[in-house]
């Protein structure tokens, strides 16, 4: 029963995803890969699209995964799942538990959760990178030379931009640049 699975999976994700859209990525990745809904590569494509379209990344991701598995009803159920816990918790805090967040226990719990979530985000990136660039977890190890060079170029552009303009480069701009470089490189490679 795909609809029920989508709703429950995203309810679970919504209930424990601290740290915004990126905090959710490791949870979504586990869910979609273990259920056989998406591959790692498809997941990265979805993240890129969710990042480049308006709206909260978490909602975009949920809609995207939901639609891929169950069409429009799937999209709506996954989205409802991901927002419902946040909605109910905030409703409680806004109405009857104004002082809840100031409790010391809540604060102590969150101080444990935060470094854990940051570690999850960075490790997710590292393991995605290992798979993408070195084929870790696939049948055969390989070295994706183009990917490694591109990663260095992207980092160079982002850091250079920050040095010159004193602000963070827009992720969408960075995605467009990467797409263009990759397209040009592949076309040249295909011709020669």
């Amino acid at each position, binding site marked *: 029963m795909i609809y029920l699975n989508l709703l429950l999976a995203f309810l679970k994700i919504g209930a424990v995803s601290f740290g915004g859209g990126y905090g959710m990525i490791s949870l979504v990745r586990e869910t979609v890969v273990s259920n056989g809904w998406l591959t790692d590569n498809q997941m990265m494509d979805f993240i890129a699209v969710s990042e480049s379209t308006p709206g909260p990344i978490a909602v975009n991701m949920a809609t995207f995964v939901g639609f891929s598995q169950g069409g429009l009803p799937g999209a709506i159920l996954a989205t409802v799942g991901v927002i419902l816990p*946040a909605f109910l918790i905030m409703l409680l805090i806004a109405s009857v538990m104004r002082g809840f967040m100031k409790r010391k226990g809540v604060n102590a719990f*969150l101080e444990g959760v935060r*470094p854990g*979530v940051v*570690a999850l985000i960075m490790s997710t990136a590292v393991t995605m990178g290992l798979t993408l*660039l070195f084929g870790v977890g696939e049948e055969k190890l390989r070295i994706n030379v183009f990917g490694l060079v591109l990663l260095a170029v992207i980092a160079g552009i982002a850091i250079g931009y920050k040095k010159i303009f004193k602000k963070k480069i827009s992720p969408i701009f960075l995605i467009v640049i990467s797409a263009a470089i990759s397209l040009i490189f592949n076309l040249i490679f295909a011709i020669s």
Partner: protein
Amino acid sequence: MSKGKMVLTLFLTFLKIGAFTFGGGYAMIALLEEEFVGKRKWLTHEEFLDIIAIGESTPGPIAINSATFIGFRQAGFFGSLFSTLGVVIPSVIIITAISLVFDRFMEFKYVQYAFEGIRVCVVYLIFTAGLRMFKGLKKKPHSFVIFSAVAVTFIAFYLFGLSFSSIICILVCGCVGLFVYAYESIRKKREGGAER
């Protein structure tokens, strides 16, 4: 403003925010502040910072957290419901529209070429988002212990092909936080007792 009109205003305002903010929750914060603190003066700057702090400390997308909270403050339950719907509807429409053509779009060779590069960029974006959050962590010893333990476990599990549960991991981290807090307060009490 009557309650019905307030609900409508909230819905339309959040619809606009949902449709025009790129880059997720944190980009949304600037827009929310401009709208509710600057233009409409429904919230003071302090209240707004409180809402963001609560949003960051509760699970779920921060955009949803703030929409629910601001909506409730302005117009009760229906305010929060329609604010949340407003912020979500543009995403659902846009992503559904993209999903309808995405598979066919991905069949083009040129698109595949472009996405090969985009995936590398996504890895970079996730890593640097984590890095920025890492810099914002409170510099406490147990933060670094938790961070290292989770990172090492996650990557080791991945390398050995074991399944890892982020949910359990997050809950365990929270319990470690509680444990450290309990331990520190007991120790403080004892030290306080010894001094006397």
